[in-house]
């Protein structure tokens, strides 16, 4: 097969590409330029796709003996991922940009271009396992990235390749060493790739400006503090709250709700954060849609705990209602709910709201 291997400059994508070469595929490597003005060097482990990363990717391609190009997707990435990130926070939701990137860039814009240019598949270093075209969790459950791929539709998965699905991270690094890949010891990137210093609140402040407002206690309705911008807060957050006095019961307070229209951040107790029902928008199924209702396991964060649930369609098929068998703590609108049947990924949907309290029987 003609395979386009996306090389980030990190160890995972390099080893993934190497395996594709070993499997006998005709591999071409590309590094995706996501910014028109990339930083010269990576600042530690944060961020990605600096010029240094591009060089590391090029060197990996040299070792693999495959052609190497840089594809400029900065404009699409800016629109589909970065602008979306800002807009979601501005709307009081919590986005996951890695999911948008997979959905709209890596397995859409890049995949479309690859197919038009004659490639059969796009290969990445994601930790996920494709079994007969069906998406599953990776063997390395600590590194499993099936959550961020749960947004892919069957046509995208049909042309995806994840060679690292059966390997644990430590072995991937060992393999990189054995293959003579200099990136074997390069630290993994984390956090949001386009916010290299990790200061998301500061980055949002630069994009959205200061939008001060009150912090309100849910139970009493009183104003207990102030903030510079509701976008810096997400449901379940405890840090960063400037609250004048401690709560009457001495318990810490958590963000329950963010309302950008009124610029209000509502806080409450840990118990208030518990959600037993989650309502989502329309799902994307990774293979043939299951007939609802169905039992599934729900994961609400990239490395969140999977929670057993009953999955139903909402009236009019506008989305899903997930009745969680045990509560999830702090479910924010905009998050992705990934649905699993054991290790197999059923699909995903975007959270619209959570409902706390006892399970609803309506």
């Amino acid at each position, binding site marked *: 097969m003609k395979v386009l291997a996306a090389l980030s400059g990190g160890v995972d994508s390099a080893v993934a590409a190497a395996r594709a070469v070993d499997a006998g595929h005709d591999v071409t490597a590309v*590094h995706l*330029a996501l910014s028109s003005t990339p930083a010269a060097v990576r600042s530690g482990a944060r961020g990605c796709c600096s010029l240094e990363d*591009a060089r590391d990717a090029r060197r990996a391609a040299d070792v693999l003996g495959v*052609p190497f190009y*840089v594809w*400029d997707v*900065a404009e699409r990435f800016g629109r589909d991922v970065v602008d979306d990130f800002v807009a979601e926070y501005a709307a009081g939701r919590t986005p996951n940009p890695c999911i948008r990137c997979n959905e709209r860039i890596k397995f859409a814009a890049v995949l479309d271009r690859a197919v*038009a*240019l004659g490639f059969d598949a796009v290969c990445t270093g994601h930790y996920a396992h494709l079994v007969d075209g069906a998406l599953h969790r990776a063997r390395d459950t600590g590194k499993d990235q099936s959550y961020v791929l749960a947004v892919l539709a069957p046509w995208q998965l049909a042309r995806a390749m994840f060679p690292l699905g059966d390997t644990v991270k430590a072995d991937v690094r060992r393999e990189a060493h054995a293959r003579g890949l200099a990136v074997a010891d390069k630290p993994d990137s984390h956090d949001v790739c386009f916010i290299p210093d990790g200061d998301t609140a500061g980055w949002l402040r630069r994009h959205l400006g200061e939008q001060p407002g009150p912090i309100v206690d849910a139970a009493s309705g009183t104003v207990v503090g102030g903030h510079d911008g509701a976008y810096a807060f997400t449901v379940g957050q405890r840090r960063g709250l400037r609250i004048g006095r401690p709560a009457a019961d001495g318990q810490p307070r958590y963000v329950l709700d963010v309302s950008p229209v009124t610029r209000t951040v509502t806080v409450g107790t840990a118990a208030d954060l518990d959600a037993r029902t989650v309502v989502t928008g329309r799902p994307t199924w990774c293979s043939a849609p299951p007939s609802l209702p169905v039992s599934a396991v729900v994961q609400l964060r990239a490395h969140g705990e999977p929670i057993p649930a009953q999955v139903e369609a909402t009236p009019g098929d506008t989305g899903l209602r997930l009745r969680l068998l045990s509560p999830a703590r702090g479910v924010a609108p905009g998050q992705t709910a990934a649905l699993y049947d054991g290790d197999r990924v059923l699909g995903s949907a975007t959270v619209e709201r959570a409902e706390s309290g006892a399970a609803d029987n309506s």
Partner: protein
Amino acid sequence: MAYLDHAASTPMLPQAAETMSGLLGQVGNASSLHAAGRRARRVVEESRETIAAALGARPSEVVLTSGGTESDNLAVKGIYWARRSADDRRRRVLVSAVEHHAVLDTALWLAEHEGAQVRWLDVDAAGRVAPAVLAAAIDEAPDDVALVSVMWANNEVGTVQPIGELAEVAHGYGIPVHTDAVQAVGQLPVDFAASGVDALTVTGHKFGGPLGAGALLVGRDVAVAPVMHGGGQERDVRSGTLDVPAIAALATAVEIAVKEQPERAERLAALRAALVHGVCRAVPDAQLNGDHVFSLDRRLPGNAHFSFPGCEGDALLMLLDARDIECSTGSACSAGVARPSHVLLAMGHDEARARGSLRFSLGHTSTAADVDALVAAIGPVVERARSAAQ
């Protein structure tokens, strides 16, 4: 493999490679006073004489450098600083809008850090600077001009500039003229003295010499402040231990290139005609960029440059590369991300046209088979690139 990127670099002439390898085993710093040093020095001086003779210069006018970029930096910075030292009003640097980045970026750097003002010389649709345009630009404030720099022939679209006339205009005001002749040597007749310019850049690897060796021809009475300070080599203009084997190879190559230039130009022009004809037949809506008149006074004989509507240049390049056909999009890439060519934009084309372009350049090893391979592939490649751009 069909290599069609000779404007980027061209294979070393076997004679030049032989000269170079023959000297690699010989130790000697050309600045040393002992026998080994004198041996090395002799090779340098004989090479200098050869280079001078081939290019219509005097040996004392040849400053040996590491190549085109260094020579351009030395010319633009060195002449600017010298002219400004003599008269502090002289801050204006007149540069054509189609210069190579080695001249362009140097001029911009002088503007940002050395108080220069860059005045772009507009070009016509073929990429040419008219002498009247230069005169008008100088006239805006003639006493404030430090220097003029216009390349002999353009690297992207092959346009030949009226260097003699431009030099005459500038000299009417007593302003020195530098020309980057890197693409011209070996394809066109280049005579330093006859051209009238004050400084001229050449580099070896464009005409079958080695990488990393070039020269700046400078008139004896043209003041040039050094960029490289140190041991005082090259009459204090360019310090640094000389790369003797590379310089000798440079001399071997330039002598051959100049001697063979007339027949080479004819042979390349014929291959280029077949290439242009073939590409236009295979892709009827391909647009030829640059001067449509294919004569030596207008366009480099080995240069062809096309825009393919509805395509991205980097997709075309990738598809051709996969078929072992090697060419260039002609645009500068620092991060490997292509920017639309400033040359095409200066010629009045829009960004889409600039982004959908390819440069095909022929050289001394080019054959009809190279042209045939391109002509056979270009149709299907353009079709695929078009569908990828949808």
